[in-house]
């Protein structure tokens, strides 16, 4: 094919022939499907896989380090920090301590936030909620989580998580990125970077922000930095799906431009871009053609993803009434299942509202009601589809809360301040041992007495499930091998691994 453009600037005859050859291959597939042809050539799984020697396109060679137990994860982050002693960490002895001061022998002069450091007293506020034992494991669960209680034998409950940060912003940043100050990749980005994508038309890492129902809920800020890729390429950043009519930013064609028109435009655009490529020889143009085709495919796959009309009634019933309202936690859980089912690696759900500094007995039941059934349905649904065995589900906040009351304490009313020294997480699926209750805190749920699990240990555990050795998974930046788990030692929590 002789190029018609006389203004071409190539002077190299060798280049000419090579490019002509390329064009022949290219046009052999027909001009109509030009963009799609480029895509197939560039992204055909076989070719890509052969080139990078990895079953998941884009993953790093050599990863996973060993057989993974999880291929996907859904991380349910309760922003604001749920009070562990009102939900999972049962402390019956506290009943006798009502309104007595937290002993200095327990507090040990540890630092407090400036919200309660000025308080003259630290009166113990026993949980007003009832606990009972569940499942084979006999785990104690609060009455506020009746659905979660039904699945304790699927879950490993870690009661001895601890962190270093004492305020939300640094603590969330820490648990998501391994550092308290913004600038590092979050766990989802690390996974995307290390293991790559498992699908052709959805992001590798998706973020959902779920709503809450109680008007007095303590809502904390989150920000795009929590799903940013830090020093990794921004292509590993999480894509926030939105609950409105545009689940992905700019996904919808403008009104008045139906899909066939967009298709027609892309075909013409592809042809013109190819001409430009012929003139300049810039490989990036081919990449651009491919990305426009990918965008077009997303325009179909995303609406299909968010369309729940084909979900069976029985499944919708598991998730409850909330699942029908976009943006609720239950709806987000259902969406998360659909995402992992379609090959998304990492789904992060944030639910804000857990910062119970006051009115805890009033607010907490509502917060629990928002999430309880969704958690249960998600695990059950994944299990029913055979996905649970290699999908890791984790649940928790960024730190715990104090046994003493912040502000006024009455038999029916109290609040709790931030507490970094212990808090509870649970995990299920993806290689996690069910029916495990790990670690023990003192009777004030203040200090850990057995089996502490640092935030870094949790991160190492998540990586472990994905078949990654956290010590060998690094990215060179500023001359250092930066790791999710940082430079301090970290150990996966073997006791909760199946």
């Amino acid at each position: 094919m002789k190029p018609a453009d006389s203004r071409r600037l190539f002077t190299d005859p060798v280049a000419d022939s090579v490019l002509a050859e390329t064009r022949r291959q290219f046009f052999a597939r027909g001009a109509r499907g030009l963009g799609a042809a480029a895509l197939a050539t560039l992204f055909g799984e076989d070719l890509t896989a052969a080139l990078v020697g990895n079953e998941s396109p884009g993953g790093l060679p050599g990863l996973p380090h060993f057989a993974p137990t999880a291929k996907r994860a859904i991380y349910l982050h309760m922003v604001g920090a749920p009070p562990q002693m009102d939900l999972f960490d049962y402390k019956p002895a506290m009943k006798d301590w009502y309104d007595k001061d937290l002993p200095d022998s327990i507090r040990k002069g540890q630092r407090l936030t400036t919200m309660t450091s000025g308080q003259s007293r630290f009166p113990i506020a026993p949980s007003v909620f009832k606990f009972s034992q569940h499942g084979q494991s006999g785990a104690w669960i609060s009455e506020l989580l009746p659905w979660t209680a039904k699945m304790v034998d699927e879950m490993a409950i870690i009661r001895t998580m601890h962190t270093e940060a004492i305020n939300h912003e640094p603590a969330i940043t820490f648990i998501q990125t391994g550092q308290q100050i913004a600038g590092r990749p979050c766990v989802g980005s690390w996974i995307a970077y290390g293991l790559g994508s498992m699908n052709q038309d959805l992001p590798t890492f998706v973020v959902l922000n779920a709503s809450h129902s109680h008007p007095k809920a303590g809502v904390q800020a989150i920000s795009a930095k929590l799903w940013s890729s830090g020093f990794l390429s921004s292509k590993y950043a999480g894509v926030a799906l939105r609950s409105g009519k545009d689940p992905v930013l700019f996904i919808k064609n403008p009104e008045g431009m139906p899909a066939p028109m967009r298709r027609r435009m892309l075909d013409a655009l592809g042809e013109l871009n190819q001409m430009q490529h012929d003139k300049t020889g810039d490989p990036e143009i081919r990449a651009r053609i491919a990305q426009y085709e990918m965008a077009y495919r997303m325009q179909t796959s995303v609406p299909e993803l968010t369309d729940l009309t084909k979900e069976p009634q029985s499944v919708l019933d598991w998730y409850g009434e909330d699942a029908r309202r976009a943006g609720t936690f239950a709806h987000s859980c259902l969406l998360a299942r659909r995402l992992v089912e379609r090959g998304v690696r990492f789904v992060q759900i944030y639910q804000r509202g857990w910062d119970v500094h006051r009115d805890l007995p009033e607010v907490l039941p509502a917060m629990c009601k928002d999430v309880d059934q969704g958690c249960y349905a998600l695990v059950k649904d994944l299990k029913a589809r055979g996905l649970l065995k290699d999908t890791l589900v984790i649940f928790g906040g960024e730190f715990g809360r104090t046994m003493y009351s912040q502000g006024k304490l009455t038999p029916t009313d109290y609040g709790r301040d931030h507490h970094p020294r212990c808090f509870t997480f649970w995990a299920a699926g993806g290689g996690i041992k069910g029916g495990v209750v790990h670690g023990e805190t003192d009777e004030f749920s203040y200090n850990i007495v057995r089996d502490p699990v640092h935030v870094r240990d949790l991160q190492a555990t998540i990586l472990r499930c994905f078949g990654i050795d956290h010590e060998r998974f690094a990215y060179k930046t500023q001359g250092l091998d930066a790791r999710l788990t940082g430079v301090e030692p970290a150990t996966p929590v073997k006791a909760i691994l199946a």
Partner: protein
Amino acid sequence: MLRPRSALPLAVVALLAGQFLFTSNAQQSPPGSKPPATVTRSVVAPKAAAIDFQREIRPILSDNCFFCHGPDEATRLADLRLDTREGLFAARDSGTPVVPGNPAASVLYRRITTPEKERLMPPVHSKKALTDGQKDLLRRWIEQGAPWKEHWAFATPSRPPLPAVKNASWVRNAIDRFVLARLEASGLQPAVEADRRTLARRVSLDLAGLPPEPEAVEAFVNDKSAQAYETFVDRLLTSKHWGEHRGRYWLDAARYADTHGVHLDNYREMWPYRDWVIDAFNRNLPYDRFIIEQIAGDLIPNRTMEQQIATGFHRCNATTNEDGAIADEVAAIYAKDRVDTTGSVFLGLTMGCASCHDHKFDPISQRDFYSLAAFFRNTTQGPLDGNVWDTPPSIVVPRPEDLARWNQISTEEASLKARLKAARTEGEADFAKWLDGQDRVSASSPLEPADELLALTVQGERPRLLVKGNPVAVTLPEGVSLGDAHIAGQKALHFSGKAFLELPNVEAIASDRPFSVAVWFYVPAGEDSFIVASQSDPKSKSRGWTFELTRRTPIFRLTGLGGRVLVARGNIIDRLKPAAWYHIAFSYDGYRVPSSLRLFLDGKEAGLEGAGEGAQLKGEIRNFSPLQVGSQGNRYFDGGAIADLRVYNRVLSPEDVSLLAHWAAFELARPKKTAALAPNELEGFRDYYFVREHADSMDLAGQLQTLRAEKLAIARRGAVTHVQQEKESKAHANVLFRGMYDQPRDTVEASTPAVLPPMGSSLPRNRMGLARWLLDPRHPLTSRVTVNRIWQEIFGTGLVKTTDDFGSQGEAPTHPDLLDWLAVEFREGGWDLKKFYKLLVTSATYRQAAVSTPLKLEKDPENRLLSRGPRFRMDAEMIRDYALAASGLLVPSIGGPSVKPYQPDGVWEAVAMFSSNTRFYRSDSGSNLYRRSLYSFWKRSAPPAAMEVFNAPTRENCTVRRERTNTPLQALAAMNDVQMIEAARHLAQRALLAAPGDFDRQMRFLSARLVARPFDERERAVTRKAYEDYLRFYAGAKDEARTLIRQGESKPDSSLPAPELAAMTMVANQLLNLDEVLVK
């Protein structure tokens, strides 16, 4: 979709040339490592040349050895350093690491080649390993005599001689000699010169950030003079858009944004700094002045307001006011940010690495880090930002037309204050007389009785109410009782449960009138919401005013039409203590805006948390409900108490409030004999006398008050900006053990890193000294780092790719001599920016066509050797600005408050705190929709969505090198963002109107604006065919056509048939998405 893109170039190149050597290395390197820095270079290095220690050997040592045998004393093993000359060549007990000329005798070489696993270096457990190629290099280096040099970046650059080249006729200026020499050595030829249209577009984008006007392109194309290109460049350099475009890059480095960044992420007024940057580039402020004024403008003798504004550079960092934040921790974070930023922008050093321990690779100690931090820890800025828009120190920036008067007021104010002081001194004798006289005893109210609308106090054992000076009987309801007050001997009204006191309606209060409320009260324990007093109408959405306490923060709320409120919220820094007495006064001046409200705490003015910008009191607050003390709606004052409550019909001055706060104490002291007065009582009476009784003082105080009102009015019209202000003390800091704020160790004084030339003894040890040290002609980094960053702007990649890391782990320069030549040229040329950019864009190197050949793709894949012209995707802002400019929508005005263009719903709400004043994004309308993108409001926790998609940074940290990815999300934004659709329609409309019925001319109209050249025949054919298809569709779908052309706020031209306009809009949308349009 977002699969890592590394597979892409690989496949592309495989397709193109069956050649993927240079990327396949990257694919095979172990996880977590980047390809060895030598890979790219080894392809292009001239063969059999002498080994370059800087480029080839030091990186290997740095990467593999320095961690244990480098600068960090704490982790150094075997007391061996391989980063210094002595360490490498001095004999040791175990032998000499490197014996020049003799690899076999060199312990270093023996240890890296030994078959004994336990002796092998680097050790197996380090997970580092040398390749055979690297070992070979080290061997040959030793054989060649092991030449050693200090790390290149720490030696002062000197002007190298221009290298010889074969093809001398290609050379236009010195740059080209260096570039060509390297190309010739690599067996490559430069590309031909780009045609004039391409050049016009490229250089317009590089100098103004906007596409050229078609007329300017034609004039340039037709300019026959030898100076045609230079003329074209000169015109761009005088364009006002030059400063905007340069400023945008700088604002990334300065981490400029319109919010604080953390937690509430409230509005911060900072845009005068942004405008200063634009203006500095436009008046071509020499770069040395540019640095000095930003780092230390406040320390310049007789500094101007502009120089103060410039110091905003280090006030742009993200700040916090999160509940519970610990001040020392936050202060340490700010200092680190400033050191990191200084490292990135001026030094090209990763200073942050030395915050927890000595740097592992570069000779920077932890002490160096904290010595540098000391320069920044000596300012008056507090650690918490107060969630306010004007966190101190900040200054008012009046409008230009107010400036003269503003300065005059300052002088007048000072003179009035001096006269007032003198008047008081003179009046001292009269005061003494008054003190002994009867008047003192009879004074009945602290301020003019005529101004007092209502006063509730307790006299002895009974409540006393005065309404406009007339006593009115009060009966205490059950639950309100007398108890202790804030001073002994006085009683207060104590409230319990839901009890409250109902007083008569205060009529004179209205939205447009000033009024004030001052209260002595007791803060109940607990975090609940309490009502101190309120006069509001429950039947009219609480229209009126309310003074409440929520979580121990005082809040004054004016509620107008439909429940719209104006709120003065005390900030968290001044949160009240529970179970304590306070005097608080709120003052409102009747102007309905946030600055109308002032809060005084214990007689002193206190900061307010920011109201949402643009907040305004709408409608009337006037009502006829009773004044309720201790209740509003279903909220009460359980556990609180009130000793004194007064309402005034005017604004209160600080002196007034001080008097009010102390009045009760004076009243008690009134019967005392003069001699028996305690010193503070005496002082109080003195204040009273001069504020209320002494005519001269009162007259002067009145003038002062008028002046202040005028000043406030000017401030209100103007803006605020954050500045730096030095403390009196000597700059110092503590070394923080492992970077932890609560583990301070040695105190260090402000000083610069030891490895760099020392600060001259004449330089002050403050920010001014630091700035001048950066500009020392011996400084090896400032000029190099700057010219490299400029090079990166123009050519896409710096000569040193790691723009912010010139240390031993950074990438060595591709053209070290060129870098040094440019550094010296820039400095010796008087730090003249325009001259320097002109040098770059007039070089033959820059003017090359951006055309690759397979040979070049093989030998110079990333164009690091500059074998062709720059061609890369434009930055986020440029893409949007391009569409606006090409379509004719751009509103080109310069500067002013940030604007809010279109943005999809929910971007802010999804992340914001409920009480954040940047929770809801409301896009502007009219001209603000079409301003250049550097004026778009930048919320750090949710930057403009369309910008972020194209790799715009969040501005949370200093960014000197943006990423440049290519993703489907970018395609979606460029295709579907309403801004892009509206631009397409506007462009289409102009094309149709410019050449009715003539498709070819319409295409010429479009192409001239989009690609600065006419489309060729094939391009026209493809586009015509698409247009016909679009038209066929829209002719049969008129509703769709009408819908499509309605996008955006501007209106389509009604004279054009909808199907035609829609079809042409599709064409324009298609063309706006051309790769050629999206790249420079």
